[in-house]
């Protein structure tokens, strides 16, 4: 079979495209894995923050709550802004977490942890 120059160029292009696709797929897989790891790390860090800033004391280590201490807060479907509002200006008897003791960044980390709980 005679392969023409154009066919050869097409074949070369296919190889390049295929290689590119493979590389891209590999990078995407790595990126997904990295995101998953980051997510786990983030959740782990969020758990550490959740404990460090005392949320566990009333709501339990898993956010499951306690009858006389605080309601269940996980799993949570609350978006970050609503969660933030509850922490900054809570209703009921929960004390407020001002930005002076709990930064937005830490609050976000805690929120991520609660969202990770199934």
């Amino acid at each position: 079979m005679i392969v023409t120059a154009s066919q050869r160029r097409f074949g070369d292009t296919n190889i390049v495209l295929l290689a590119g696709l493979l590389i891209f797929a590999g990078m995407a897989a790595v990126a997904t894995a990295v995101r998953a790891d980051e997510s786990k790390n983030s959740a782990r860090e969020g758990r550490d923050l959740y404990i460090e800033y005392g949320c566990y004391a009333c709501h339990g280590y898993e956010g499951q709550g306690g009858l006389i201490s605080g309601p269940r807060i996980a799993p949570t479907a609350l978006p970050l802004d609503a969660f933030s509002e509850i922490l900054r200006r809570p209703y009921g008897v929960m004390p407020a977490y001002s930005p002076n003791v709990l930064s937005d960044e830490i609050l976000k980390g805690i929120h991520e942890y609660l969202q990770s709980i199934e």
Partner: protein
Amino acid sequence: MSSGTKQRRLNRRAFVKGAAAAGTAAGLAPQTVVGQDDAAATSAAQPSSGTEAMEREAPAGYSKDQAAYYFVQQAGSDRMVDALRQLGIDYVAANPGSSFRGLQESIINYGGNSKPELLTCLHEESSVAMGHGYAKAAGKPIAVACHGTVGLQHAAMAVYNAWCDRAPVIIIAGNHLDATHRTGRVIWAHSVQDAAVLVRDFSKWDDNPVSLPHFLESLVRGYKIATTPPMGPVVIVADHDVQEQEVGPQQPKIPALSPTVPPRGDDAAVREAARLLVAAENPVLIADRMANTPAGMSRLVELAEMLQAPVVDRGGRMNFPNDHYLNQTSLNRRLIANADVILGMEMTDFWGAVNRLRDLVHDQEVSLTKPDVKLISLGVGDLYLKSNYQNFSRYLPVDLSIAGDAETTLPALIEDVRLAMPNRRRRQIAEREPALRQAYSEMRARSRQEATYAWNASPISTARLCMEIWERIKDRDWSLVSETIFQSQWPQRLWTMNKHHRFIGGSGGFGVGYGAPAAVGAALANREKGILTVNIQSDGDMLYAPGVFWTAAHHKIPLLSVMHNNRAYHQEVMHIQRMGLRRQRGVDGPAKIGNTFEDPLIDFAAMAKSMGIWSSGPIETPGELAPALRRALDVVEQGEPALVDVICQPR
């Protein structure tokens, strides 16, 4: 079985004691004289330890004067033991003290250490708290013996708890009142002019008898007062001289006990309460320290069913079965918010049941009821109050305040409800039942659902802890003798608690340290009935006087203790956190300072083992719980105490 019990010799002394226990006056009757006119002849004297003393010869080698110098033939404390026996007091819990050495020796040797039996305690707080738990489980008190000074000081918090909880304990406090009889500086340091003043603000009655007849009368009176609702601890001083001096031939009488019938609410007031309840569309019944006996529970069930009224059980006692559809305790906020008539029975905090004071920077008072709700109070709280300690809670204006023992008054209230309810009204009320049953089912389903969160967590969730215990005990005849509020009341929410002895309430005064000794005392009472005693033991509570577990081991008191070990005084952790947040500082960690048992961690299983108790733990993962609990139960069923240390979620 009890340790140190000896078969009493059937002898003349035993015959005399038996006569005393039957409540007969043991004073001497005139002697029959041979040769006198029959009409003037009198009956033979009843045998007594006094006559025995007279007739006993001096020991060999001693003249009568020498015998009188060295020996005591009949000690006053022997008669005290007679009185304890006559009152049916089966145990005397004591940490030993020289000020009551006479009584202790009489219990052991004169009484044969049986009914009453001496319970060796390692702290007077344990002695009194054991009495507190025993009384609630047994329905009758035991006695406690202690130094009138340092012993009563140790015991004070437990006396407070018993007083707040309206539980009877008979406390006998030793003292040396006569200064010329105090042999040395220890005795001087352990002597006091007025021993009971230390606890007078939180005991029901006290006396300082100056003679043996006085003591005997006071002991019987004290028992009567302690066991009359509202019940409470009493203190009777047993002076050293009264205990140890020679009684002589005339044995003083032990008066008969005249138990007081508890007061019942006024007839007209009870009729009015019945009228209000029958007319109500949304009545709610709240019971706190109401059911002292199983009759209280069954009466409340009858009333609730007649009215189709949901019941909120505040848990001061076991008031209402939780497998009855009208037990809607978990719905209490909604019920109280919708109620038009609320009956509160033996409430320790009626104000707090229908209001809330929010712990905020500026406290917020919130009413939980409708503005036009009718409130009815039924109980003995208004009949007995003291000023200094404020356990009576906040004043609540009510529409009808009935002074009377609630359990005693319920039959009259039930009858008046029946009379006030024509057939048409009965049918209308009956129509509430389906909705109430539905609400109950949904309430229980929600509790089951809530228990599943953090089910496999480590530290172990309190729901998982309680359900693993339940799985092991549910087919046995059991009694839970510890407070459950720190475990989110999972037993009340998920177990089946439908007999009066399933739960005995809490400490009353919330003095931490009540739990372990009260559990041991309750277990002692349950041992005689073959009931398995279960204690969910808080770590902080156990640390106050863990020696009570040695007492349990020594006296072979079967008790299953499963620890709720959160390694902290956790309520205080939350308090300090609240303070930090208010002040915008120190939230990231410092709340634990002063409040936690870390660095190093305490090995409770090793501690229990050192006291002679089988133990296991610490258990840190839920999968380890079942086998550990099974092994522990095997030990308990053989008549011994056992403890499983479990690392748990805070609440």
